[in-house]
């Protein structure tokens, strides 16, 4: 929806060649013997008001990449260009902590675990109001009013603000977490698996809330998840990651109509259809995800790919644009049907 409209204007976020290596140390002297390339080659843009889904299996680097963008961890390489509210473009990857501080209010996060992400020793008022307090927004009264407004916004009663998190169910706590993320009027919200810890009947409520809030507050979402159906439902565009690399990026409908990377296709086939009449049992992806500490030669996916050829085993493919806005990291993208 908003993806096409925003395509012409400069992006809110542009990630180029993002890298995050973790050293592998050994022995008493903590000698570095190698690196885990948790993120090694992630490029994408994010237009204002759109939702980009970042999918992949555990260990693919999607969470690490999102934490780099939040600067919860420091990236090893690459740039994260962010257009601030006042129109400047800054590189989040290299910003000093002091310069980063004022931007914290603009970029917020929604967590996976609704139980661990709220401080159990603080009331909702203190939990949700903390970003306001530390960013010097309003006095005590104004903050309480804002928290009440936020609670109403996420579908909770404002009277709850004097309660502690332990009084709420998982779905309600996730709403509280969303309220906290929205407290400072952020522009970019990174949602890390926001519904995967919730019960099936609660997931839909939270997904609907996120869609509604996005429309109302013109939010930009980076939606990190492993569940393809959830990501498909909420995203304008989807980026697929495998062993620290972005392997495919396309608009949601295009990606699902004709995936241009064999891994994406395999991932789709692996999702069990919630319909006993659709049997999804052919061509199961064999093997295991390689370790990002010792990825295979050539294309990282070649040992598991049924289309792999000699070229795939020696030459690492680059991410290239197959069709307008459709990127794939496969030598044979555009030539083959996956």
């Amino acid at each position: 929806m908003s993806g096409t409209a925003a395509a012409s204007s400069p992006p809110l976020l542009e990630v180029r060649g993002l890298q995050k290596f973790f050293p592998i140390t050994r022995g008493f002297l903590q000698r570095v013997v190698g690196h885990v390339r948790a993120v090694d080659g992630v490029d994408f843009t994010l237009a204002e008001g759109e939702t980009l889904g970042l999918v992949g299996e555990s260990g693919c680097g999607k969470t690490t990449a999102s934490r780099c963008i939040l600067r919860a961890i420091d990236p090893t390489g690459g740039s994260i260009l962010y257009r601030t509210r006042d129109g400047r473009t800054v590189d989040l990857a290299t910003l000093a902590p002091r310069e980063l501080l004022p931007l914290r209010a603009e970029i917020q996060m929604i967590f996976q675990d609704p139980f661990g992400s709220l401080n159990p020793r603080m009331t909702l008022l203190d939990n949700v109001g903390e970003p306001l307090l530390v960013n010097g927004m309003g006095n005590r009264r104004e903050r309480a009013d804002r928290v009440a407004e936020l609670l109403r916004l996420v579908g909770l009663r404002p009277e709850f603000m004097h309660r502690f998190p332990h009084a709420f169910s998982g779905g309600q706590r996730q709403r509280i977490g969303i309220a906290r993320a929205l407290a400072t009027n952020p522009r970019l919200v990174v949602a890390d698996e926001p519904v995967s810890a919730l019960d099936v009947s609660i997931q839909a409520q939270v997904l609907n809330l996120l869609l509604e809030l996005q429309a109302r507050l013109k939010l930009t979402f980076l939606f990190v998840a492993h569940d393809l159906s959830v990501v498909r439902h909420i995203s304008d565009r989807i980026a697929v990651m495998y062993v620290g690399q972005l392997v495919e990026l396309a608009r949601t409908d295009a990606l699902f109509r004709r995936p241009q990377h064999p891994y994406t296709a395999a991932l789709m086939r692996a999702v069990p259809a919630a319909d006993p009449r659709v049997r999804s049992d052919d061509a199961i992806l064999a093997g295991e995800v390689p370790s990002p500490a010792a990825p295979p030669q050539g294309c990282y996916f070649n040992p598991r790919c049924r289309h792999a050829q000699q070229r795939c085993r020696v030459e690492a493919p680059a991410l290239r644009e197959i069709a307008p806005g459709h990127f794939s990291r496969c030598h044979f993208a555009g030539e083959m049907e996956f």
Partner: protein
Amino acid sequence: MALDRPMAVASTLRPLLSVRNLRVSFALDEGLVRAVDGTSFDVMPGQVLGVVGESGCGKSVTMRAILQLVERPGRITAGEIHFRRRPPNGGDEDSAETVDIARLPPRGPVMRDIRGGEIALIPQEPMAAFSPVHTVGDQIVEAILLHGQRWQEGGRKLTRREARDITVGLFRDVGISMPEQRIDAFSWQLSGGLRQRAMIAMALSCKPRLLIADEPTTAIDVTTQAQVLALLRDLQARHGTAIIFITHDLGVIAQMASYVVVMYLGRVMEEGPVDDIFHAPRHPYTRALLRSIPSLYGETRVALPVISGALPHPFNRPPGCPFHPRCPDVMTKCPGAVPSLQPVGTSQLASCFLHHDVVDAG
């Protein structure tokens, strides 16, 4: 002989496991939690029964009750769990003895024999099920030596060497490559997928009559999940083992089960053949649940139909039908009486007053 045949047919139609009005409560400091509150269902021989439900629906506690593994302060307070045991000395099914597991002492010899010998469990987190200080192979070898007679005609004891060979065979059977090497690995050296395969090998080591898979793929990735599901389907087809497959994932249920039980707050809401459950659900909860999940085919970025409200806290069970506070079709009688599980149509059962007026007596 002529007499045997119709009897043999009859015995395959008799359930292998029959749970009747099972109730399990936990007496906590804060109050009594009725985790399982009058659950009934049958498992036929060779059937894959899917049990689906959200957290707190009692699906896992029911399975622990079947294995007599309910831990204090939990207690089976009522109901029966009839299990048809393996016929002695390879006799035919008619000589099989039926026991009520609910009445068996949890640590008694009969229960120990059934647990692991006739009913095996595949847990959600295989990491916790294997000991980290023994190799995976050693643990399976121990299990085989313990239930050795299943692998040996006659009463001769298996040697360790033979048990090890059987384990290698099992590993090959569950699709673990290089089984001779992997058998000497510790559980923490294996990847999530391999660990779950090893767990399945462990469960199969006693040639169980009933396999309980408790969310076996929840902790693993989707491509690995597809492998494990395919493996379980394949093993089921080859050995004809009955499986109770517990999950909250409706996709997994649709792909694995032939018969489905839908649970909510400790009660069975609806049960029936998988196709009917997915294409002609009778209970409002089943219908709402199916509508609320995003699919790979539906329209994107639109509001999903939701089930309003939250799952009630276990201390605050709603009176009457447990689903009534969230039910879109709630009627005046729903808060006052608990509907019983009754046949609806030709193949399904539902506990809902939309379809019948039978009140649950218990």
